[in-house]
């Protein structure tokens, strides 16, 4: 039988849904019986969602980068029309 420690070691395969049928069944069986591991997996999924939604600062540097890139592009367009 899968131990809790082994389940934690393989939890990534569960989160990424990359398990053989056999592993999937042994993980499911373990989770049915083990409240600690159920809680662990639930919280791992919650951690994933938190990382996904963690706000990032929009920086002014990105605006100036975008402005520069579109200028380069516009310059290229003009060049193409002239040639």
């Amino acid at each position, binding site marked *: 039988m899968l131990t809790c*420690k082994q389940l*934690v070691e393989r939890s990534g395969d569960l989160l*990424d849904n990359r398990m053989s049928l056999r592993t999937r069944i042994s993980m499911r069986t373990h989770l049915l019986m083990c409240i600690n591991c159920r809680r662990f997996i639930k919280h791992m999924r*919650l951690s994933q969602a938190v990382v996904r939604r963690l706000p990032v600062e929009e920086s002014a540097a990105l605006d100036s980068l975008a402005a520069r*890139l579109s200028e*380069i592009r516009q310059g290229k367009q003009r060049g193409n029309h002239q040639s």
Partner: protein
Amino acid sequence: MNYPDDSALLARLLSGEQKAYRELVATYQGAMRAVAFAIVGSRNADEVVQDAWLAVVNNLEGFQGRSSLKTWLLTITANTAKTRLKHNRREVLIDDLPGPHGTIGDEHFADDGHWLLAPHAWHQDTPEKLLMEVELRECLEKTLVSLSASQGSVLLLRERQGLELEEICNLLDISLSNVRVLLHRARLKVFATLEHFEETGKC
């Protein structure tokens, strides 16, 4: 073109529309930075990303829509970074630094493989509620910064950018088993931080 959203954006990019570039940069800068960071490290990452953006703008006509725009951008970034590295040795990619709140390791389990201490119950059960705590957000930022370049990048590319593990392998030239190890370690450190915060109310 197989990616309709990309094709609409591409038309606007080709015409040089500034708003389209703002969208592009805001959407992909983070992922491009993660790729560059994993390959060349923090010192040269920003420069690589700059160079990659210039390559993108100058080669827009070359984008055929055979892949998604995102894959194309990240491939250019990875190639730019690898060119930069050509004569330098890659740093060891499987490095592991201690997280501020540890991880879930052997010491959490009894000899028979059962939990020694049950995982803690958390006060909040949605990401929105968890993220309302300013202190927790700052605490998580600290944990993310503490990750090695490769761990942090793999985590970001997988969890925030939704890349498949195989895509990450190809971009960063890391084996699948190493990508899985890096991702697992990073996830456990994030988990440990949340667990610690929910248990103690402090970072």
